[in-house]
């Protein structure tokens, strides 16, 4: 089992640091955001699986050649109230770490989903009470605010797109259409689900800077995917103008730009530039990356289960 534990640990280290950093630095994701989003999800999932898997295998090693058999021995002894034979301090620590880490990640995901839902519900009720429905546009509300604002509120049957009066005044009809299509794409493609998972991951691992990079990268990729949907309805230059105008605040008074420290200027530039000079991803990327993503997720369970590694 030690070989499996070592291989899983190596994979975990690779997926925790060099692989996501290389992906965050590469330029092809702007040209193939869907593929890149798939890869980020595979890296996150496989990274967590291999880390927990390597601890689990190391923790179970004293009880048997195969993890399933080892778990049977362990639970059998534990139920009788006996410390299983062969337990060492190291194996006990590894097993405890695997269980704690797994529980920590799962509980954090649940807590983040619940908190996010509660915030959205509160915000939705405020929007419904303080905004007017947009004429002839279903599920779209108009806020009486001068700043150009557009966002969407996901919800199983009650999703909303919210625009401000300032945005409608600032943009042409076609630009508004682009914004609306962009927000609808977020809702249709359920980007909120991916985002909440990466948000939970970052909150669960505050000492792990790559989690925050991953969240930023995934957020930008969902924006690009939504842009790509909007491009089917409005021409690229129109959408690019809408993004630039809204990002600059349209010179709206009362909203100092300094307040927007959280906003990432680089992401706005990247979104606009890929619209101004569109290019498709290298063929190699389109062919290899999806396969690599699937392989990443398959490898940890195979390493856990295969007798040739565990025997």
């Amino acid at each position, binding site marked *: 089992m030690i070989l499996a534990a070592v291989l899983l640990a190596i994979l975990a280290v690779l997926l925790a640091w060099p692989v996501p950093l290389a992906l965050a630095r590469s330029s092809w994701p702007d040209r193939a955001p869907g593929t890149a989003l798939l890869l980020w999800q595979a890296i996150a999932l496989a990274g967590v699986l291999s880390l927990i898997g390597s601890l689990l295998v190391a923790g179970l090693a004293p009880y048997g050649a195969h993890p399933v058999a080892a778990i049977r021995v362990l639970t059998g002894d534990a139920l009788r109230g006996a410390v299983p034979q062969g337990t060492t301090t190291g194996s006990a620590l590894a097993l405890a770490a695997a269980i704690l880490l797994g529980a920590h990640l799962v509980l954090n995901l649940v807590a983040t989903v619940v908190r*996010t839902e509660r*915030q*959205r519900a509160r*915000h939705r*009720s*405020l*929007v*419904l*009470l*303080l905004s007017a*429905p947009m004429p002839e546009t279903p599920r779209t509300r108009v*806020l009486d*605010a001068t*700043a150009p*604002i*557009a*966002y*969407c*509120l*996901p919800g199983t049957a009650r999703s909303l797109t*919210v625009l*401000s009066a300032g945005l409608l005044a600032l943009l042409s009809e076609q630009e508004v259409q682009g*914004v609306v299509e*962009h*927000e609808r794409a*977020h809702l249709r493609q359920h*980007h*909120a689900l991916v*985002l909440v998972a990466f*948000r939970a991951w970052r909150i669960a691992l505050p000492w792990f800077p790559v989690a925050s990079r991953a969240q930023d990268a995934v957020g930008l990729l*969902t*924006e690009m995917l939504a842009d790509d949907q909007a491009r089917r309805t409005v021409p690229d*230059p129109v959408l*690019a*103008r809408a*993004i*630039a*105008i*809204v*990002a*600059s*605040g349209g010179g709206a008074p009362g*909203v100092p*730009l300094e*307040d*927007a420290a*959280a*906003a*990432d*200027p*680089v*992401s*706005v*530039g990247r*979104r*606009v*530039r890929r619209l*101004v000079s569109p290019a498709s991803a290298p063929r190699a990327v389109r062919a290899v990356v999806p396969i690599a993503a699937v392989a990443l997720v398959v490898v940890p369970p195979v390493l856990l289960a295969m007798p040739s590694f565990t025997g």
Partner: protein
Amino acid sequence: MESLGELERTALEQLWDAAGPLTPGELRDRLAIGDQRGLALTTVMTVLSRLEKKGFVARDRTVRPATYAPVSAREEYVAELMHDALGAAGDRTEALARFVGRASADETAALRRLLGLD
């Protein structure tokens, strides 16, 4: 027929505009202005109880008939809403997916030049 949600909105607006707490009957009369058919009192009661359940209005049971008043001023809710919508609330606003974040003045100036907006 307006949806219940729209009725909640107009009812709360009337309560905000009113000088003091309103009875369901007074609220119905205010809502009836500009609407020839008027509303059934039971509908107004339903709308008020929904608003009460959501914590937007409070019922005063010490008087008869009971009166209703907004819990907070409109401005407070608008401030909370805008705080979320403009992304000033930090982690909380990650619950919303905004069309675009704010870019720095330098970056947007460069983008506007690139697109020939200025």
